[in-house]
């Protein structure tokens, strides 16, 4: 049976993929440009045995998601900018308590209320460092409606497999874009469910990692009774402030991601076999970047593109390998501070030039913006882009 081709909005693809991945609980608070996800879930979840809750704010939304996940649900929430800021404290709880869940942050321009609803890629560092304390998370960023679908399924799989919160962070352009794509058939994409304890209930330790770095997770109401806490805790889930235990816990939270980083770090490359210039892109900027790269080749500048689908953990190895033999690395991104460029610089070292192309006015970076920057940097003089 062939796949069905559907015209879909990015946010719709995220909602449908979440349900495809097994999500049966959504709690959220409305905010543009993410609200379509809540609206779709409110219509679909009741018809498939799930629960939709509109909570009183984003703090409560992620709290309810954590609670439902521990009761056994694949659970998620969606928000944007200000709402994502409000979620940070309980996102830290999900890290500490090792609670699988997915948070969609459709990135919009700030600071604060900022250019409400307008696109941006300026939450890159907030995704990684928005919470207090030593911790790490997984964050993914799609560039097309198809990728919205695929990465949402990945996000749930990573959350379930590694017992972590996973953040899916499309920019507003991708969240609101409409494209047709072949929707994966039921059973076509791999769906991962969390590891359940197989030991007798009286021996269950909810934070005792197995060789793969991950501890099995029971669900409230089953035979295995357990404690989850935001406080420092031992393998049994009870509070434990012993220094040795605290080091072990913090290391464990990092180790389970580090151990599996090759599986987690997703990238795509375009024309990187023969290039003089490497372009590193994320989200919607990938689309402008690829158009600019093709145009540059017509003008004799060999540009290759590395698209980062995983933002965190940062795909350092992948960037380093491709950046080694080029003279210039270009990083277009929709923020002022060069949040991706800074990471790329950290990886390639300060000797290599990073050509930064930034926009932070709520409009997309065009292929021409990028092309002009590349040509200018190659010739030392301004070149007008064609078209």
């Amino acid at each position: 049976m062939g796949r069905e081709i559907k015209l879909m909005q990015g946010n719709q693809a995220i909602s449908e993929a979440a349900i495809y991945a097994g999500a049966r609980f959504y709690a959220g608070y409305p905010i543009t440009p993410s609200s379509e996800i809540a609206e779709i879930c409110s219509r679909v979840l009741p018809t498939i045995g799930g629960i939709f809750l509109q909570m009183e704010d984003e703090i409560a939304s992620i709290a309810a998601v954590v609670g439902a996940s521990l009761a056994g649900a694949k659970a998620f929430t969606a928000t944007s900018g200000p709402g994502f800021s409000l979620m940070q404290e309980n996102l830290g709880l999900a890290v500490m308590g090792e609670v699988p869940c997915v948070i969609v942050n459709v990135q919009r321009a700030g600071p604060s209320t900022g250019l409400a609803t307008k696109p941006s890629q300026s939450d890159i560092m907030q995704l990684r460092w928005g919470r207090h304390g030593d911790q790490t998370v997984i964050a993914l960023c799609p560039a097309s409606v198809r990728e919205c679908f695929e990465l949402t399924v990945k996000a749930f799989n990573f959350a379930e497999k590694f017992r972590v919160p996973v953040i899916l962070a499309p920019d507003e352009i991708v969240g609101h874009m409409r494209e047709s794509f072949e929707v994966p058939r039921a059973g076509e994409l791999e769906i991962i469910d969390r590891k359940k304890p197989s030991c007798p209930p009286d021996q269950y330790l909810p934070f005792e990692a197995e060789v793969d770095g991950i501890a099995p997770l029971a669900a409230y109401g089953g035979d295995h009774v357990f404690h989850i806490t935001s406080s420092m805790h031992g393998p049994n889930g009870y509070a434990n402030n012993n220094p040795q235990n605290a080091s072990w816990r913090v290391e464990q939270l990092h180790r389970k991601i580090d151990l599996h980083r090759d599986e987690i770090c997703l990238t795509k490359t375009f024309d990187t076999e023969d290039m003089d210039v490497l372009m590193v892109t994320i989200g919607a900027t990938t689309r402008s970047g690829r158009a600019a790269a093709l145009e540059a080749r017509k003008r004799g500048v060999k540009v290759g593109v590395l698209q980062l689908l995983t933002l965190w953990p940062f795909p350092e190895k992948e960037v380093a390998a491709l950046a080694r033999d080029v003279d210039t690395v270009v990083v277009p991104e929709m923020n002022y501070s060069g949040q991706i460029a800074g990471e790329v610089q950290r990886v390639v070292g300060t000797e290599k030039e990073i050509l930064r192309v930034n926009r932070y006015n709520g409009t997309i970076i065009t292929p021409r913006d990028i092309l002009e920057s590349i040509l200018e940097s190659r010739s030392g003089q301004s070149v007008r882009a064609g078209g």
Partner: protein
Amino acid sequence: MTHATGTKYLKNGMLPHMWCSGCGIGILMGAMVRAFEELEYTNHETVVVTGIGCTGKLDDYLTTNALHVTHGRALPHATGVKAFNPRLKVVVIMGDGDSVTIGGNHLIHAARRNIDVTAIILNNFNYGMTGGQASGTTPEECITSTTSFGNPEREIDICALAEVAGANYVARQTPYHGWELKENIKEALNKKGFSLVEVVSPCPTHFGKNNEMLEAREMLLWLQEKSLPVEKYRKLGVGEKKDYFAVGTLVDRNAPDFNTRYEEIRKRALEL
């Protein structure tokens, strides 16, 4: 008949507990586990959700399922647990800071939503854990470590708030009334929909010390003196009422709870 001790819900090796002598939290815990025993709660069907504070440490001593969360956010976490698995017995333990100060909005909406959880709130008029600062329930004029010259703000009435927000069951007791407290907790646990028990309690270490109630005994006697069974309290004139507070069952009604309503809506969605 042997009386329930509730000890089977207490974790071996964790006692003595962390609370100061004279604190009311231990009495609250005792009443709660006795109520569990009399209602034959099992560890695996029970989830105790706690916030942050001296009161929020209560889950440390329990053998039931537990979820110890962030300050003020116990109710929305509990809402997620209960909404997804309505068969669970979900009990939420919070201080006054947790429940009606930082987390006040969640209390209003948990009551309005009528989610079938039982909130047990220990009101010691201040933030015990962090050194006795003022909270939303610190009475006007009282001295705390952040209102050294008297509190300029008015206090909130937890039970009245829960009532107007839509709770199905609201009761108030004190550690002086151990038996009645256990009975009210049982009624709350048995009630479908949002139920709340406020436990007005001594914090001799901070609030008591600052407000001439240094001795736990004095504070317990003060609780005895100031509390009136609700039937008596309601007969008082307006002027007299301000010197007392009512204990007992204050609200008892049977509006359909969230999960019941959700299933009705689900049926409608499936019929379309």
